[in-house]
């Protein structure tokens, strides 16, 4: 007897819309004339994202654990994280569509005649848009998935396009390809861990659903060794995605090598998805076993914050610096997981938005600083940018200050709420370390500000290209969100508060 599964299409619709958009994008790639492809692709992607967002908002108040049997839960956290991903993705798409960031023909050998031909024809390939949409769909699925299979599939859907996109840079293609390779190999390696962990959780509980695992843990129904192995291996996969130490090594290399808009997209959206999934797994499935994993996550959080902050101090490449900053932030985000309470969830949600916009904004600025050979990421050549274009440099400083958690920026409220949550959860150690790390982290944020504003520009200095309208939009949005959430965070805090629930 086979009962067809009941699928709640309305609640799945945001993801489906994105997938549909991605498929249309593939079609566009095949059927639309090269000269118009870029425009069409952009519009398709943007409309898709907006449509998905609208759909998401129309169903935002519905709650269900049975959207697709047990595999997908539509709850407050899902809505919030999907919406965050969509909004960030919208701006990331604008950034991606900006001219000249992507290779004309990815298959052409760097430095070959093919490449020059493809380049001079101006026939840029535009597969990046459908790839992005696929990745977005995976990202949206990841934090909402409630069984191990779906989680794994979602993880792969979001990762595989990113591996490819990392290799699409127009300039410094060798580096870009290397980034793709590293990202891919290590990503696949970590997925293996994730899957293996899933297998053991299944072995422990006999079920693939998170709720089932939670029930099994409460009943301590299985072999504890399996549970521990399962938790550890699953954790490796998740920690890899958010870039926590010691699974972080890929981050600086990939952030540096990937095309900057992709880095921005990846840094902002992947983090939301991965942290979201991690939150769900730990809050829903593993919360009963917190004695065992909490100390470990605490230690990892502390080490991650410290390593991220300390390593960033002496970096010379802007993108690498931002990568280490993102590692440090992974540590801060882990605090929210350690907190394991509603405030922690709320704080993490807020943190993700704040961090996402600041990160996107920061990478947007990176795309603007150029010389004749393309983007300049060597920090020594950013010297004195504040004099040449105070607004752009000022925006960059704002993002850095937000990363540093200076009051009246979104980062401050984010840190404040996440520390509060941890404190409330009784974990003062992590707060103390968080505070110390913030101090260390400040050092390198300030170092960059000093370079930008307090050092005389050198003669070979780079130029800041005039941002296009699209890029200006991204920049403006990031600046506005960063300031607004710092000055009047209630608007988002209230939302986060009401959406910060996991249906079990």
């Amino acid at each position: 007897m086979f009962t067809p599964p009941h699928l709640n299409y309305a609640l799945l619709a945001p993801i489906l819309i994105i997938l549909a958009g991605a498929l249309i994008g593939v079609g566009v790639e095949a059927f639309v004339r090269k000269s118009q492809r870029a425009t069409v692709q952009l519009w398709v992607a943007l409309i898709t994202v907006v449509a998905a967002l609208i759909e998401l908002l129309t169903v935002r108040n519905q709650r269900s654990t049975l959207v697709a049997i047990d595999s997908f839960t539509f709850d407050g956290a899902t809505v919030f994280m999907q919406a965050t991903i969509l909004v960030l993705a919208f701006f990331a798409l604008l950034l991606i569509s900006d001219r000249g960031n992507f290779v004309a023909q990815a298959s052409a050998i760097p430095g070959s005649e093919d490449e020059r031909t493809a380049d001079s024809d101006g026939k840029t390939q535009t597969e990046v848009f459908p790839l992005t949409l696929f990745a977005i769909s995976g990202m949206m699925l990841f934090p909402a998935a409630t069984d191990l299979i779906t989680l794994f599939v979602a993880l792969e859907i979001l990762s595989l396009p990113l591996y490819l996109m990392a290799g699409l840079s127009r300039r410094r293609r060798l580096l870009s390809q290397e980034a793709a390779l590293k990202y891919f190999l290590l990503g696949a390696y970590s997925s293996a861990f994730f899957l293996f962990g899933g297998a053991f959780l299944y072995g422990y509980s006999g079920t693939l659903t998170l709720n089932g695992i939670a029930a099994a843990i409460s009943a301590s129904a299985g072999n504890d060794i399996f549970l521990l192995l399962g938790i550890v291996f699953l954790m490796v996969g998740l920690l890899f995605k958010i870039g926590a130490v010691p699974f972080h090594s890929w981050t600086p290399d990939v952030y540096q090598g990937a095309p900057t808009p992709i880095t921005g997209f990846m840094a902002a959206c992947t983090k939301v998805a991965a942290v979201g999934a991690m939150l769900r797994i730990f809050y829903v499935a593993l919360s009963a076993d917190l004695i065992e994993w909490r100390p470990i996550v605490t230690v990892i959080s502390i080490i991650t914050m410290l390593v991220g902050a300390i390593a960033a101090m002496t970096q010379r490449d802007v993108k690498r610096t931002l990568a280490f900053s993102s590692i440090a932030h992974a540590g801060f985000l882990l605090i929210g997981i350690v907190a394991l309470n509603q405030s922690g969830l709320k704080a993490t949600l807020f943190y993700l938005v704040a961090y996402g916009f600041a990160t996107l904004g920061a990478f947007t600025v990176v795309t603007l600083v150029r010389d004749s050979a393309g983007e300049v990421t060597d920090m020594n050549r950013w010297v004195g940018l504040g004099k040449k274009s105070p607004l752009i440099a000022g925006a960059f400083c704002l993002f850095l200050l937000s990363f540093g958690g200076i009051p009246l920026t979104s980062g401050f409220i984010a840190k404040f709420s996440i520390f509060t949550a941890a404190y409330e959860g009784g974990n003062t150690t992590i707060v103390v370390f968080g505070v110390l790390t913030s101090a260390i982290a400040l050092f390198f944020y300030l170092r960059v500000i000093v370079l930008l504003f307090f050092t005389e520009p050198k003669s070979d200095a780079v130029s800041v290209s005039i941002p296009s309208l699209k890029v200006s939009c991204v920049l403006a949005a990031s600046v506005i969100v960063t300031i607004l959430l710092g000055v009047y965070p209630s608007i988002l805090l209230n939302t986060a508060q009401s959406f910060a629930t996991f249906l079990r």
Partner: protein
Amino acid sequence: MTTRANLVYLIALPLFSSAFLMLLGKIANKWGHFFATAISASTFGIGIVEFIAMRSRSGDARAATQHLFEWISVGTFRVDASLLLDQLSICFVLLITGVGTLIHIYSIAYMSHDVDRRRFFAYLNLFIAAMLLLVLGDSYLNLYVGWEGVGLASYLLIGFWNQKPAYATAAKKAFVANRVGDVGLSLAIMIAFTQFGSVTFAGVKDGAPHASAAALTAIGAMLLLAAAGKSAQFPLQSWLGDAMAGPTPVSALIHAATMVTAGVYLITRSNFIFDASSTARLLVVIVGAITLLFGAIVGTAKDDIKKALAASTMSQIGYMILATGLGPVGYAFAIMHLLTHGFFKASMFLGAGSVMHGMDDEVNMRRYGALGKVMPITAITFGLGYLAIIGVPPFAGFYSKDKIIETAFNAGGTKGILLGGAALLGAAITAFYMTRVFVLTFMGKKRWDDKAHPHESPSLMWIPMVLLSLGSVASGYLLSKGSALVHWLAPVVNSSNAEGGAELMKPIVVSALALGVVVLGVATAIIKYGRSVPIEAPAGSALTRFARRDLGQDDLNHQLLVLPGQAITRTLVATDFGFIDGVVRAVGWTLAYLSQSLKKIQNGYVRSYALLMTAGAIALLVTIWLVTL
């Protein structure tokens, strides 16, 4: 029952005059000195009026007060800006304004060639105001304001020619030494407040009988420290000699007649503290005795006329301090000596100024000689002061100093003999060095070279000298006649109630002894300096050389305070950079080092990243296994 009087003008007039002259700038150059002198004279006038009014009142009503405004009031700590003019303060008011006015007049001529004369007079007026505040304040804190005010005026005046680095240094030295004393005064006030909840003289007096001996001794000792600073007493005496860098009228007014005696005023004013603590009194007499000998010995070796006089001042104030430590009757004698000293020392300083005026600012007495002929008035007025200070009857010093020697002998026991002996020895040495000064300056053969054209000073200068010398002739007799001053001060210092104590020697014996040693001293000096005096000072004995070096006071300070102070400063500067800031920098370096080390992990090889991940996974496994154990 208190009398109210309008006393504020005594302070306000000179204070505003001073500010006025400073702010007005060059416009007032032409008439500023006259204005300042007029103001000073008018304060003297007010003083006279108040004195007459006070005499006309009787008993408790003699003291007059004026409450101006609430100055500081926090919790129970309440200090009003409020003035008190009683029998003790009026003595000072008259001395300050009287001598002060004479010196203003003198200075008009003395400073006539100085471009900054207006500023000089502004400072003088500032000094008068501060000094009057010192003696008129009705609480220790008000006194403190005046106390430091005169310190400031003194600093400004010593350093009046501060373009000469040595003079600027002298001014600074005076201020700092005074500040050390001020620490004492501050602490005394703090202890008083802690003990009595009040810092007014009346409040402290009321509370004194209830306080513990230790507290009273502590207050007394701190007040003595303050007095030592201001009055150049041992061990804070070293600044006075250098203070002679100031214009001579300043030396006369501030560093001889008035300011330096503030310590005597302070102790006398605080008689209720010292009466109640014999330990404090003992400290006072020890300091007084040491200083009077110290100053006298230094005075024998100085060739600089002003420094010799300064040493003499130190010694004479030593007498006064000694007297204040001798109990109730001593206060009156101290004040009497203070007043007579005010006259004769001012007169001699002005004389010295007059000599310098005539000798192109030459101060070395070995280059004087026989000036009596060319400067007769100066010589006579100086001579009268000289006779007064060595205690030749019937000049003023005889009356006042004799009383102190006598009282010292009567202090009883070994103490009495030691103190009396010291005072007597001091008198002998005083006679010696003052004779030396007089002889070297006015008698013998001329030793100045032909470039100098000594001449008598203008009348504006010699009239004050004459008036002051008259005072040094007559004041002693007038004040001691019928124990006038003792009775006058009795309500303040209890002087007349004091029992006589065991009389060791009859007064007449003491006087005879004193006269005897004076004659001895004078004779020795005349024998030694009467005939030929080398222009270049002979090497002299070890003691002479030691005395010339102020008995090593500066060396001692240098070794004990300056060098350790510099060492501390150097050490702390090094510590601040090396250690405290160093720790901060070390944190930075450590982090940077760690950061560099972390870079090594990031070697670019995928395989080692994978290895790191694997190691991490294993570490997680081990940890979670440990956690579950």
